[in-house]
Protein backbone atom coordinates (compact mmCIF):
# COMPACT_ATOMS: atom_id res chain seq x y z
CA UNK A 1 0.00 0.00 0.00
CA UNK A 2 1.73 3.12 -1.20
CA UNK A 3 0.67 6.46 0.08
CA UNK A 4 1.40 9.90 -1.14
CA UNK A 5 2.71 12.17 1.54
CA UNK A 6 2.49 15.86 2.01
CA UNK A 7 5.95 16.07 0.59
CA UNK A 8 4.62 15.50 -2.92
CA UNK A 9 1.83 18.06 -2.94
CA UNK A 10 3.77 21.14 -4.07
CA UNK A 11 5.85 19.36 -6.65
CA UNK A 12 9.15 19.20 -4.76
CA UNK A 13 9.22 16.41 -2.16
CA UNK A 14 9.80 17.28 1.47
CA UNK A 15 13.29 15.99 2.37
CA UNK A 16 13.77 14.31 5.69
CA UNK A 17 17.09 13.27 7.20
CA UNK A 18 16.97 10.14 9.41
CA UNK A 19 19.92 9.77 11.80
CA UNK A 20 20.16 6.49 13.73
CA UNK A 21 23.02 4.10 14.41
CA UNK A 22 20.62 1.14 14.52
CA UNK A 23 20.45 -0.13 10.93
CA UNK A 24 17.00 -1.70 11.30
CA UNK A 25 15.48 1.43 12.84
CA UNK A 26 17.00 3.61 10.13
CA UNK A 27 15.63 1.18 7.54
CA UNK A 28 12.09 1.05 8.95
CA UNK A 29 11.81 4.82 9.33
CA UNK A 30 13.21 5.30 5.82
CA UNK A 31 10.65 2.88 4.41
CA UNK A 32 7.69 4.33 6.30
CA UNK A 33 8.56 7.87 5.21
CA UNK A 34 9.24 6.92 1.57
CA UNK A 35 5.93 5.08 1.48
CA UNK A 36 4.34 8.27 2.80
CA UNK A 37 5.88 10.16 -0.13
CA UNK A 38 8.82 11.87 1.52
CA UNK A 39 12.34 11.96 0.18
CA UNK A 40 14.58 10.36 2.77
CA UNK A 41 18.28 10.88 3.49
CA UNK A 42 20.07 8.75 6.10
CA UNK A 43 23.08 8.99 8.43
CA UNK A 44 24.47 6.44 10.91
CA UNK A 45 25.82 8.66 13.67
CA UNK A 46 25.80 12.21 14.97
CA UNK A 47 28.84 13.34 13.01
CA UNK A 48 27.56 11.98 9.73
CA UNK A 49 24.15 13.50 10.51
CA UNK A 50 25.71 16.91 11.11
CA UNK A 51 27.64 16.68 7.85
CA UNK A 52 24.63 15.56 5.79
CA UNK A 53 22.38 18.23 7.34
CA UNK A 54 24.95 20.93 6.60
CA UNK A 55 25.36 19.82 2.99
CA UNK A 56 21.76 18.89 2.14
CA UNK A 57 19.63 21.29 4.23
CA UNK A 58 16.74 18.86 4.74
CA UNK A 59 13.27 20.12 5.69
CA UNK A 60 13.19 18.02 8.85
CA UNK A 61 15.53 15.80 10.84
CA UNK A 62 14.53 12.65 12.74
CA UNK A 63 17.35 11.63 15.06
CA UNK A 64 18.13 9.06 17.70
CA UNK A 65 19.45 10.40 21.02
CA UNK A 66 22.11 7.83 21.98
CA UNK A 67 24.67 7.60 19.18
CA UNK A 68 28.43 7.32 18.86
CA UNK A 69 30.64 10.41 18.39
CA UNK A 70 27.85 12.96 18.84
CA UNK A 71 24.56 12.37 20.63
CA UNK A 72 21.37 13.52 18.92
CA UNK A 73 21.22 16.49 21.29
CA UNK A 74 24.84 17.50 20.66
CA UNK A 75 24.22 17.26 16.91
CA UNK A 76 21.22 19.60 17.27
CA UNK A 77 23.28 22.04 19.34
CA UNK A 78 25.90 22.12 16.58
CA UNK A 79 23.20 22.65 13.93
CA UNK A 80 21.91 25.60 15.98
CA UNK A 81 25.33 27.27 15.83
CA UNK A 82 25.20 27.36 12.04
CA UNK A 83 22.66 29.94 10.72
CA UNK A 84 22.19 27.83 7.59
CA UNK A 85 20.91 24.85 9.60
CA UNK A 86 19.56 26.55 12.74
CA UNK A 87 15.95 26.60 11.57
CA UNK A 88 15.67 22.91 10.61
CA UNK A 89 13.03 21.34 12.89
CA UNK A 90 13.92 18.08 14.62
CA UNK A 91 11.98 15.09 15.96
CA UNK A 92 13.93 13.01 18.43
CA UNK A 93 13.62 9.28 19.07
CA UNK A 94 15.03 8.09 22.37
CA UNK A 95 15.30 4.79 24.21
CA UNK A 96 16.32 6.68 27.33
CA UNK A 97 14.08 6.18 30.30
CA UNK A 98 14.15 9.85 31.26
CA UNK A 99 12.50 12.79 29.58
CA UNK A 100 14.70 15.54 28.26
CA UNK A 101 14.04 19.03 29.55
CA UNK A 102 11.44 20.87 27.44
CA UNK A 103 13.40 24.13 27.48
CA UNK A 104 16.52 22.29 26.23
CA UNK A 105 14.49 20.73 23.46
CA UNK A 106 12.96 24.00 22.36
CA UNK A 107 16.27 25.84 22.43
CA UNK A 108 17.65 23.48 19.79
CA UNK A 109 14.48 23.37 17.70
CA UNK A 110 13.39 19.85 18.77
CA UNK A 111 9.64 19.82 18.21
CA UNK A 112 8.89 16.48 19.78
CA UNK A 113 10.53 13.59 21.58
CA UNK A 114 9.21 10.10 20.87
CA UNK A 115 10.17 7.26 23.18
CA UNK A 116 11.48 3.97 21.81
CA UNK A 117 9.81 1.57 21.15
CA UNK A 118 7.94 3.95 18.85
CA UNK A 119 5.15 3.56 16.36
CA UNK A 120 6.15 4.38 12.74
CA UNK A 121 2.52 5.37 12.19
CA UNK A 122 2.71 7.91 15.02
CA UNK A 123 6.09 9.12 13.73
CA UNK A 124 4.64 9.83 10.28
CA UNK A 125 1.75 11.73 11.91
CA UNK A 126 4.29 13.83 13.83
CA UNK A 127 6.28 14.45 10.66
CA UNK A 128 3.12 15.53 8.82
CA UNK A 129 2.21 17.87 11.67
CA UNK A 130 5.74 19.29 11.82
CA UNK A 131 6.06 19.82 8.11
CA UNK A 132 2.54 21.30 8.07
CA UNK A 133 3.43 23.65 10.93
CA UNK A 134 6.57 24.63 9.09
CA UNK A 135 4.64 25.39 5.87
CA UNK A 136 2.19 27.54 7.86
CA UNK A 137 5.07 29.35 9.54
Amino acid at each position, binding site marked *: MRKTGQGAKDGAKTRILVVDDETYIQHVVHL*KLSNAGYEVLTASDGEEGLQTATEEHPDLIITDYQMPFLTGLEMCQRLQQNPATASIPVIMLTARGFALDDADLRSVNILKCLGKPFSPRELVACVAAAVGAKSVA
Partner: protein
Amino acid sequence: MRLALTISLCAGAVALLATLLSALMAAVLGPGFASIQLAPLLLGAGIAGLIGAGIGWAGGWYADKQLSRLRAVVSAVEVAEAPTTRLVGPLAPIARLHLDVIEQLEQDRRSARSQVRQIEIRKHLAQTEVEHLSGVLHSLRDAVLVTNEFNELVMANEAAASLFKFDREGALNKPIGQVLPEKEIVSLIGEAAVAGNTSSRKHTECTLAREPEPLSLEVSLSSLADATHEAASVVTILHDITQERQVSRMKNEFVSKASHELRTPLSSIKAYIEMLLDGEAEDEKARREFYEIIQHEAERLGRMIDNMLNISRIEAGMISATWENIDIVPIAQEAVELLKPQAAEKNISITFQRPHQSCHADVDKDMIKQVITNLISNAIKYTPEGGRVTVAPDLTDCDRSVIVSVNDSGLGIPPESLPKLFSKFYRVDKHERVAKGTGLGLNLVKQIVEAVHHGEVGVESEVGKGSRFWFIVPCKQGA
Protein backbone atom coordinates in the same frame (compact mmCIF):
# COMPACT_ATOMS: atom_id res chain seq x y z
CA MET B 1 36.88 -6.63 118.70
CA ARG B 2 39.80 -7.63 120.72
CA LEU B 3 39.97 -10.15 123.51
CA ALA B 4 42.08 -9.67 126.62
CA LEU B 5 42.72 -12.54 128.96
CA THR B 6 44.29 -12.50 132.36
CA ILE B 7 44.79 -15.18 135.01
CA SER B 8 45.49 -14.23 138.61
CA LEU B 9 46.06 -16.19 141.76
CA CYS B 10 43.73 -15.36 144.58
CA ALA B 11 45.80 -13.79 147.32
CA GLY B 12 43.33 -11.86 149.37
CA ALA B 13 39.73 -10.88 149.22
CA VAL B 14 38.05 -11.95 145.97
CA ALA B 15 36.35 -8.61 145.55
CA LEU B 16 39.54 -6.68 145.74
CA LEU B 17 41.20 -8.87 143.18
CA ALA B 18 38.27 -8.54 140.87
CA THR B 19 38.41 -4.76 141.05
CA LEU B 20 42.11 -4.78 140.35
CA LEU B 21 41.70 -7.06 137.37
CA SER B 22 38.93 -4.89 135.98
CA ALA B 23 41.14 -1.88 136.18
CA LEU B 24 44.00 -3.74 134.57
CA MET B 25 41.88 -5.01 131.65
CA ALA B 26 40.29 -1.64 131.14
CA ALA B 27 43.75 -0.26 130.72
CA VAL B 28 44.69 -3.03 128.30
CA LEU B 29 41.57 -2.74 126.23
CA GLY B 30 41.48 1.00 126.11
CA PRO B 31 38.45 3.23 125.54
CA GLY B 32 36.67 0.67 123.40
CA PHE B 33 36.37 -1.70 126.34
CA ALA B 34 33.01 -3.46 126.24
CA SER B 35 32.73 -6.09 128.93
CA ILE B 36 34.70 -8.13 131.38
CA GLN B 37 34.07 -11.58 132.71
CA LEU B 38 35.66 -13.23 135.73
CA ALA B 39 35.65 -16.93 136.63
CA PRO B 40 37.17 -18.64 139.67
CA LEU B 41 39.92 -21.22 139.38
CA LEU B 42 39.01 -23.97 141.81
CA LEU B 43 41.68 -25.92 143.59
CA GLY B 44 40.11 -28.54 145.83
CA ALA B 45 37.51 -26.78 147.90
CA GLY B 46 39.08 -23.35 147.70
CA ILE B 47 39.43 -20.78 144.98
CA ALA B 48 42.97 -20.71 143.75
CA GLY B 49 42.64 -17.81 141.46
CA LEU B 50 40.53 -15.93 138.91
CA ILE B 51 40.25 -15.99 135.16
CA GLY B 52 39.26 -12.73 133.64
CA ALA B 53 38.09 -12.26 130.03
CA GLY B 54 37.30 -8.95 128.50
CA ILE B 55 35.75 -8.14 125.15
CA GLY B 56 36.34 -4.76 123.77
CA TRP B 57 36.10 -3.05 120.38
CA ALA B 58 39.46 -2.13 119.00
CA GLY B 59 38.70 -2.29 115.34
CA GLY B 60 38.67 -5.33 113.10
CA TRP B 61 37.14 -8.70 113.53
CA TYR B 62 38.20 -11.60 115.71
CA ALA B 63 40.70 -13.95 114.25
CA ASP B 64 39.88 -17.67 114.40
CA LYS B 65 42.51 -18.16 117.13
CA GLN B 66 41.06 -15.43 119.33
CA LEU B 67 37.56 -16.78 119.00
CA SER B 68 38.56 -20.27 120.04
CA ARG B 69 40.50 -18.81 122.98
CA LEU B 70 37.44 -16.84 124.02
CA ARG B 71 35.32 -19.96 123.71
CA ALA B 72 37.79 -21.82 126.03
CA VAL B 73 37.53 -19.04 128.61
CA VAL B 74 33.77 -19.10 128.57
CA SER B 75 33.81 -22.92 128.92
CA ALA B 76 36.04 -22.49 131.96
CA VAL B 77 33.53 -20.06 133.39
CA GLU B 78 30.82 -22.64 132.79
CA VAL B 79 32.87 -25.28 134.59
CA ALA B 80 33.33 -22.90 137.46
CA GLU B 81 29.63 -22.30 137.49
CA ALA B 82 28.78 -26.02 137.86
CA PRO B 83 26.42 -26.97 140.75
CA THR B 84 29.28 -28.46 142.80
CA THR B 85 31.05 -25.16 143.17
CA ARG B 86 30.12 -22.64 145.69
CA LEU B 87 30.78 -19.19 144.47
CA VAL B 88 29.82 -18.82 140.89
CA GLY B 89 26.03 -18.73 140.78
CA PRO B 90 25.72 -15.06 139.69
CA LEU B 91 28.18 -15.53 136.85
CA ALA B 92 26.13 -18.11 134.94
CA PRO B 93 23.86 -15.81 132.90
CA ILE B 94 26.78 -13.60 131.96
CA ALA B 95 28.73 -16.60 130.75
CA ARG B 96 25.82 -17.66 128.57
CA LEU B 97 25.49 -14.18 127.25
CA HIS B 98 29.12 -14.35 126.23
CA LEU B 99 28.61 -17.67 124.55
CA ASP B 100 25.72 -16.14 122.57
CA VAL B 101 27.90 -13.20 121.65
CA ILE B 102 30.65 -15.55 120.50
CA GLU B 103 28.24 -17.59 118.43
CA GLN B 104 26.85 -14.41 116.95
CA LEU B 105 30.38 -13.33 116.17
CA GLU B 106 31.15 -16.66 114.55
CA GLN B 107 27.99 -16.43 112.49
CA ASP B 108 28.80 -12.88 111.48
CA ARG B 109 32.21 -14.01 110.49
CA ARG B 110 30.87 -16.90 108.42
CA SER B 111 28.40 -14.63 106.68
CA ALA B 112 31.09 -12.02 106.15
CA ARG B 113 33.30 -14.68 104.60
CA SER B 114 30.55 -15.86 102.31
CA GLN B 115 29.85 -12.24 101.37
CA VAL B 116 33.51 -11.78 100.56
CA ARG B 117 33.42 -14.94 98.43
CA GLN B 118 30.31 -13.69 96.63
CA ILE B 119 31.88 -10.32 96.05
CA GLU B 120 34.98 -12.03 94.68
CA ILE B 121 32.83 -14.13 92.33
CA ARG B 122 30.94 -11.00 91.24
CA LYS B 123 34.17 -9.17 90.70
CA HIS B 124 35.49 -12.03 88.59
CA LEU B 125 32.26 -12.14 86.59
CA ALA B 126 32.37 -8.40 86.11
CA GLN B 127 35.98 -8.63 84.93
CA THR B 128 35.07 -11.40 82.47
CA GLU B 129 32.14 -9.30 81.30
CA VAL B 130 34.37 -6.27 80.79
CA GLU B 131 36.88 -8.35 78.82
CA HIS B 132 34.06 -9.89 76.78
CA LEU B 133 32.49 -6.51 75.99
CA SER B 134 35.84 -5.06 75.13
CA GLY B 135 36.46 -8.05 72.83
CA VAL B 136 33.09 -7.42 71.17
CA LEU B 137 33.86 -3.74 70.80
CA HIS B 138 37.24 -4.39 69.24
CA SER B 139 35.90 -7.03 66.90
CA LEU B 140 33.37 -4.55 65.45
CA ARG B 141 34.09 -3.34 61.93
CA ASP B 142 32.30 -0.12 62.78
CA ALA B 143 34.42 2.50 64.46
CA VAL B 144 33.31 3.25 68.04
CA LEU B 145 34.37 6.35 70.00
CA VAL B 146 33.25 7.15 73.55
CA THR B 147 33.81 10.65 74.89
CA ASN B 148 33.05 12.01 78.35
CA GLU B 149 31.23 15.20 79.30
CA PHE B 150 34.47 17.14 78.79
CA ASN B 151 34.70 15.85 75.18
CA GLU B 152 37.73 13.74 76.08
CA LEU B 153 38.18 10.37 74.45
CA VAL B 154 37.60 7.66 77.05
CA MET B 155 37.31 4.69 74.75
CA ALA B 156 37.98 3.82 71.12
CA ASN B 157 38.09 0.50 69.34
CA GLU B 158 40.69 -0.70 66.82
CA ALA B 159 38.42 0.19 63.89
CA ALA B 160 38.20 3.79 65.09
CA ALA B 161 41.97 4.01 65.57
CA SER B 162 42.59 2.70 62.08
CA LEU B 163 39.86 4.84 60.46
CA PHE B 164 41.20 8.07 61.96
CA LYS B 165 44.81 6.90 62.09
CA PHE B 166 45.52 7.54 65.80
CA ASP B 167 47.35 5.55 68.45
CA ARG B 168 44.63 4.05 70.63
CA GLU B 169 46.47 4.02 73.96
CA GLY B 170 48.08 7.41 73.43
CA ALA B 171 44.80 9.09 72.46
CA LEU B 172 42.90 8.15 75.60
CA ASN B 173 41.86 11.08 77.85
CA LYS B 174 42.84 13.61 75.19
CA PRO B 175 40.29 16.16 73.89
CA ILE B 176 38.56 14.60 70.89
CA GLY B 177 39.43 17.67 68.80
CA GLN B 178 43.11 16.76 69.16
CA VAL B 179 42.56 13.11 68.28
CA LEU B 180 40.37 13.47 65.18
CA PRO B 181 41.48 15.68 62.32
CA GLU B 182 37.91 15.73 60.97
CA LYS B 183 36.28 18.89 62.32
CA GLU B 184 32.85 17.81 61.11
CA ILE B 185 32.76 14.74 63.37
CA VAL B 186 34.30 16.61 66.31
CA SER B 187 31.56 19.23 66.14
CA LEU B 188 28.86 16.54 65.85
CA ILE B 189 30.18 14.95 69.06
CA GLY B 190 30.32 18.36 70.76
CA GLU B 191 26.71 19.09 69.80
CA ALA B 192 25.56 15.68 71.03
CA ALA B 193 27.33 16.22 74.37
CA VAL B 194 25.66 19.59 74.93
CA ALA B 195 22.28 18.38 73.78
CA GLY B 196 22.66 15.31 75.94
CA ASN B 197 20.74 16.36 79.05
CA THR B 198 18.21 13.77 77.95
CA SER B 199 19.22 10.48 76.36
CA SER B 200 19.08 10.86 72.63
CA ARG B 201 20.23 9.28 69.37
CA LYS B 202 21.16 11.07 66.21
CA HIS B 203 21.89 9.62 62.77
CA THR B 204 23.63 11.50 60.07
CA GLU B 205 26.00 10.94 57.17
CA CYS B 206 29.37 12.41 56.43
CA THR B 207 32.22 12.02 53.98
CA LEU B 208 35.89 11.58 54.87
CA ALA B 209 38.58 12.56 52.41
CA ARG B 210 40.58 9.37 51.87
CA GLU B 211 42.73 7.88 49.11
CA PRO B 212 42.01 6.50 46.58
CA GLU B 213 38.41 7.61 47.06
CA PRO B 214 36.41 9.42 49.76
CA LEU B 215 34.62 7.33 52.37
CA SER B 216 30.90 7.70 52.99
CA LEU B 217 30.07 7.13 56.64
CA GLU B 218 26.84 6.76 58.53
CA VAL B 219 27.33 8.38 61.94
CA SER B 220 25.19 7.43 64.97
CA LEU B 221 25.60 9.57 68.08
CA SER B 222 24.05 8.48 71.38
CA SER B 223 24.21 10.65 74.46
CA LEU B 224 24.43 8.74 77.71
CA ALA B 225 22.62 11.26 79.84
CA ASP B 226 23.24 11.73 83.51
CA ALA B 227 20.32 13.68 85.04
CA THR B 228 22.68 15.71 87.18
CA HIS B 229 24.88 16.80 84.29
CA GLU B 230 24.10 19.30 81.62
CA ALA B 231 26.57 17.69 79.27
CA ALA B 232 26.72 13.95 78.77
CA SER B 233 29.12 11.34 77.55
CA VAL B 234 28.65 10.47 73.89
CA VAL B 235 28.96 7.15 72.07
CA THR B 236 29.77 7.69 68.38
CA ILE B 237 29.48 4.80 65.93
CA LEU B 238 30.73 5.23 62.36
CA HIS B 239 29.59 2.73 59.76
CA ASP B 240 31.29 2.68 56.35
CA ILE B 241 28.62 2.83 53.65
CA THR B 242 30.94 3.60 50.73
CA GLN B 243 30.34 0.21 49.18
CA GLU B 244 26.55 0.35 49.64
CA ARG B 245 26.55 3.73 47.93
CA GLN B 246 28.65 2.35 45.05
CA VAL B 247 26.44 -0.72 44.68
CA SER B 248 23.33 1.40 44.61
CA ARG B 249 24.88 3.75 42.04
CA MET B 250 25.94 0.80 39.89
CA LYS B 251 22.50 -0.75 40.23
CA ASN B 252 20.87 2.46 39.01
CA GLU B 253 23.31 2.63 36.10
CA PHE B 254 22.62 -1.02 35.33
CA VAL B 255 18.86 -0.50 35.26
CA SER B 256 19.21 2.61 33.12
CA LYS B 257 21.63 0.98 30.67
CA ALA B 258 19.79 -2.35 30.63
CA SER B 259 16.47 -0.71 29.83
CA HIS B 260 18.11 1.31 27.07
CA GLU B 261 19.77 -1.78 25.61
CA LEU B 262 16.58 -3.83 25.76
CA ARG B 263 14.46 -1.10 24.19
CA THR B 264 16.58 -1.03 21.05
CA PRO B 265 15.76 -4.50 19.64
CA LEU B 266 12.25 -4.16 21.04
CA SER B 267 11.80 -0.96 18.98
CA SER B 268 12.72 -2.80 15.80
CA ILE B 269 10.36 -5.68 16.58
CA LYS B 270 7.45 -3.36 17.37
CA ALA B 271 8.08 -1.10 14.35
CA TYR B 272 8.36 -3.94 11.83
CA ILE B 273 5.23 -5.67 13.16
CA GLU B 274 3.33 -2.41 12.80
CA MET B 275 4.67 -2.05 9.26
CA LEU B 276 3.41 -5.55 8.44
CA LEU B 277 0.01 -4.82 10.01
CA ASP B 278 -0.24 -1.52 8.08
CA GLY B 279 0.64 -3.27 4.81
CA GLU B 280 3.80 -1.26 4.33
CA ALA B 281 5.72 -4.25 2.89
CA GLU B 282 5.13 -4.04 -0.83
CA ASP B 283 5.66 -7.69 -1.72
CA GLU B 284 6.32 -11.16 -0.32
CA LYS B 285 10.09 -10.56 -0.46
CA ALA B 286 9.77 -7.42 1.68
CA ARG B 287 7.44 -9.21 4.12
CA ARG B 288 9.96 -12.05 4.43
CA GLU B 289 12.69 -9.50 5.08
CA PHE B 290 10.56 -7.98 7.87
CA TYR B 291 9.93 -11.40 9.42
CA GLU B 292 13.65 -12.13 9.38
CA ILE B 293 14.46 -8.79 11.00
CA ILE B 294 11.86 -9.45 13.70
CA GLN B 295 13.32 -12.91 14.29
CA HIS B 296 16.87 -11.55 14.38
CA GLU B 297 15.98 -8.79 16.84
CA ALA B 298 13.93 -11.15 19.01
CA GLU B 299 16.95 -13.46 19.21
CA ARG B 300 19.17 -10.51 20.08
CA LEU B 301 16.76 -9.51 22.82
CA GLY B 302 16.72 -13.11 24.09
CA ARG B 303 20.53 -13.26 24.15
CA MET B 304 20.71 -9.99 26.08
CA ILE B 305 18.22 -11.22 28.65
CA ASP B 306 20.08 -14.55 28.95
CA ASN B 307 23.39 -12.76 29.44
CA MET B 308 21.93 -10.40 32.02
CA LEU B 309 20.28 -13.26 33.89
CA ASN B 310 23.43 -15.39 33.79
CA ILE B 311 25.53 -12.52 35.11
CA SER B 312 23.10 -11.74 37.90
CA ARG B 313 22.73 -15.44 38.77
CA ILE B 314 26.50 -15.82 39.01
CA GLU B 315 26.75 -12.60 41.04
CA ALA B 316 24.04 -13.84 43.39
CA GLY B 317 25.80 -17.22 43.67
CA MET B 318 22.70 -18.88 42.27
CA ILE B 319 24.26 -20.66 39.32
CA SER B 320 25.35 -24.25 39.80
CA ALA B 321 28.19 -25.48 37.66
CA THR B 322 28.26 -29.04 36.30
CA TRP B 323 31.82 -29.99 37.08
CA GLU B 324 33.73 -32.34 34.78
CA ASN B 325 37.43 -33.00 34.52
CA ILE B 326 37.81 -32.62 30.77
CA ASP B 327 40.31 -31.62 28.13
CA ILE B 328 39.85 -27.98 27.19
CA VAL B 329 41.69 -28.41 23.85
CA PRO B 330 38.71 -29.97 21.97
CA ILE B 331 36.33 -27.41 23.52
CA ALA B 332 38.48 -24.56 22.21
CA GLN B 333 38.65 -26.24 18.82
CA GLU B 334 34.85 -26.61 18.71
CA ALA B 335 34.50 -22.89 19.44
CA VAL B 336 36.94 -22.09 16.62
CA GLU B 337 34.98 -24.26 14.18
CA LEU B 338 31.72 -22.63 15.27
CA LEU B 339 33.02 -19.15 14.49
CA LYS B 340 34.88 -19.91 11.25
CA PRO B 341 31.92 -18.80 9.10
CA GLN B 342 31.78 -15.46 10.94
CA ALA B 343 35.54 -15.02 10.39
CA ALA B 344 35.23 -16.01 6.73
CA GLU B 345 32.65 -13.24 6.16
CA LYS B 346 35.38 -10.71 6.95
CA ASN B 347 38.13 -12.71 5.31
CA ILE B 348 39.81 -13.17 8.68
CA SER B 349 42.10 -16.18 9.05
CA ILE B 350 41.49 -18.03 12.29
CA THR B 351 44.24 -20.34 13.54
CA PHE B 352 44.00 -22.97 16.24
CA GLN B 353 47.32 -23.68 17.94
CA ARG B 354 47.13 -27.24 19.26
CA PRO B 355 49.33 -27.79 22.34
CA HIS B 356 51.62 -30.86 22.66
CA GLN B 357 49.67 -32.27 25.57
CA SER B 358 46.05 -32.43 26.69
CA CYS B 359 44.82 -29.66 29.01
CA HIS B 360 42.51 -31.26 31.55
CA ALA B 361 40.75 -29.12 34.13
CA ASP B 362 37.67 -29.20 36.38
CA VAL B 363 35.26 -27.00 34.45
CA ASP B 364 31.65 -26.56 33.47
CA LYS B 365 31.95 -27.48 29.80
CA ASP B 366 29.12 -25.27 28.48
CA MET B 367 30.25 -22.24 30.44
CA ILE B 368 33.90 -22.57 29.37
CA LYS B 369 32.80 -23.00 25.76
CA GLN B 370 30.79 -19.78 26.06
CA VAL B 371 33.85 -17.99 27.45
CA ILE B 372 36.05 -19.11 24.52
CA THR B 373 33.27 -18.35 22.01
CA ASN B 374 32.75 -14.84 23.41
CA LEU B 375 36.48 -14.10 23.24
CA ILE B 376 36.84 -15.36 19.64
CA SER B 377 33.65 -13.62 18.54
CA ASN B 378 34.93 -10.32 20.01
CA ALA B 379 38.31 -10.81 18.29
CA ILE B 380 36.56 -11.28 14.93
CA LYS B 381 34.25 -8.30 15.53
CA TYR B 382 37.06 -5.88 16.27
CA THR B 383 39.55 -7.10 13.66
CA PRO B 384 39.42 -5.43 10.25
CA GLU B 385 38.93 -7.39 7.02
CA GLY B 386 41.82 -9.70 6.17
CA GLY B 387 43.14 -9.82 9.75
CA ARG B 388 44.28 -12.74 11.88
CA VAL B 389 42.89 -14.43 14.99
CA THR B 390 44.79 -17.13 16.87
CA VAL B 391 43.40 -19.36 19.60
CA ALA B 392 45.91 -21.17 21.83
CA PRO B 393 45.10 -23.40 24.82
CA ASP B 394 48.01 -24.62 26.98
CA LEU B 395 49.07 -25.72 30.44
CA THR B 396 50.64 -23.12 32.70
CA ASP B 397 51.61 -22.49 36.32
CA CYS B 398 53.74 -25.71 36.51
CA ASP B 399 50.90 -27.67 34.88
CA ARG B 400 48.49 -26.70 37.67
CA SER B 401 46.35 -24.43 35.47
CA VAL B 402 45.07 -24.20 31.93
CA ILE B 403 45.46 -20.98 29.96
CA VAL B 404 43.57 -20.11 26.79
CA SER B 405 44.74 -17.07 24.79
CA VAL B 406 42.90 -15.40 21.94
CA ASN B 407 45.15 -13.07 19.91
CA ASP B 408 43.96 -10.76 17.19
CA SER B 409 45.47 -8.27 14.75
CA GLY B 410 42.58 -5.91 15.45
CA LEU B 411 42.01 -2.31 16.46
CA GLY B 412 43.56 -2.61 19.89
CA ILE B 413 42.19 -1.01 23.04
CA PRO B 414 43.26 2.42 24.34
CA PRO B 415 45.09 2.09 27.70
CA GLU B 416 42.49 4.22 29.52
CA SER B 417 39.77 1.72 28.55
CA LEU B 418 41.61 -1.40 29.78
CA PRO B 419 40.62 -1.17 33.48
CA LYS B 420 36.92 -0.84 32.59
CA LEU B 421 36.89 -3.41 29.81
CA PHE B 422 35.31 -6.24 31.82
CA SER B 423 32.68 -4.03 33.48
CA LYS B 424 29.03 -4.52 32.77
CA PHE B 425 27.79 -2.51 29.76
CA TYR B 426 31.17 -0.90 29.19
CA ARG B 427 31.98 -0.29 25.55
CA VAL B 428 35.06 1.33 24.09
CA ASP B 429 33.72 4.59 22.58
CA LYS B 430 35.68 4.33 19.37
CA HIS B 431 34.55 0.74 18.83
CA GLU B 432 30.83 1.47 18.97
CA ARG B 433 30.89 2.28 15.29
CA VAL B 434 32.83 -0.84 14.36
CA ALA B 435 30.49 -3.43 15.81
CA LYS B 436 27.28 -3.79 17.75
CA GLY B 437 27.50 -5.07 21.26
CA THR B 438 25.72 -4.98 24.56
CA GLY B 439 28.76 -4.55 26.77
CA LEU B 440 27.82 -7.77 28.54
CA GLY B 441 29.96 -10.40 26.76
CA LEU B 442 33.27 -9.67 28.51
CA ASN B 443 31.57 -9.21 31.87
CA LEU B 444 30.04 -12.68 31.49
CA VAL B 445 33.51 -14.04 30.60
CA LYS B 446 34.90 -12.51 33.78
CA GLN B 447 32.05 -13.81 35.93
CA ILE B 448 32.32 -17.36 34.57
CA VAL B 449 36.10 -17.52 34.86
CA GLU B 450 36.56 -15.72 38.16
CA ALA B 451 33.38 -16.25 40.18
CA VAL B 452 32.52 -19.77 39.00
CA HIS B 453 35.93 -21.29 38.13
CA HIS B 454 38.15 -19.32 40.57
CA GLY B 455 40.39 -18.37 37.67
CA GLU B 456 41.57 -15.12 36.18
CA VAL B 457 40.97 -13.12 33.01
CA GLY B 458 43.30 -10.56 31.48
CA VAL B 459 44.10 -8.53 28.41
CA GLU B 460 47.12 -6.93 26.81
CA SER B 461 46.57 -4.58 23.93
CA GLU B 462 48.19 -2.04 21.68
CA VAL B 463 46.12 0.41 19.66
CA GLY B 464 46.44 -0.32 15.95
CA LYS B 465 48.29 -3.61 16.48
CA GLY B 466 45.89 -5.92 18.25
CA SER B 467 44.93 -7.50 21.51
CA ARG B 468 45.58 -10.66 23.48
CA PHE B 469 42.76 -11.80 25.75
CA TRP B 470 43.46 -14.74 28.03
CA PHE B 471 41.94 -16.66 30.87
CA ILE B 472 43.40 -19.14 33.34
CA VAL B 473 41.46 -21.79 35.26
CA PRO B 474 42.97 -24.13 37.88
CA CYS B 475 43.19 -27.81 36.83
CA LYS B 476 41.72 -28.89 40.16
CA GLN B 477 38.88 -27.00 41.81
CA GLY B 478 39.35 -26.65 45.55
CA ALA B 479 43.05 -27.57 45.24
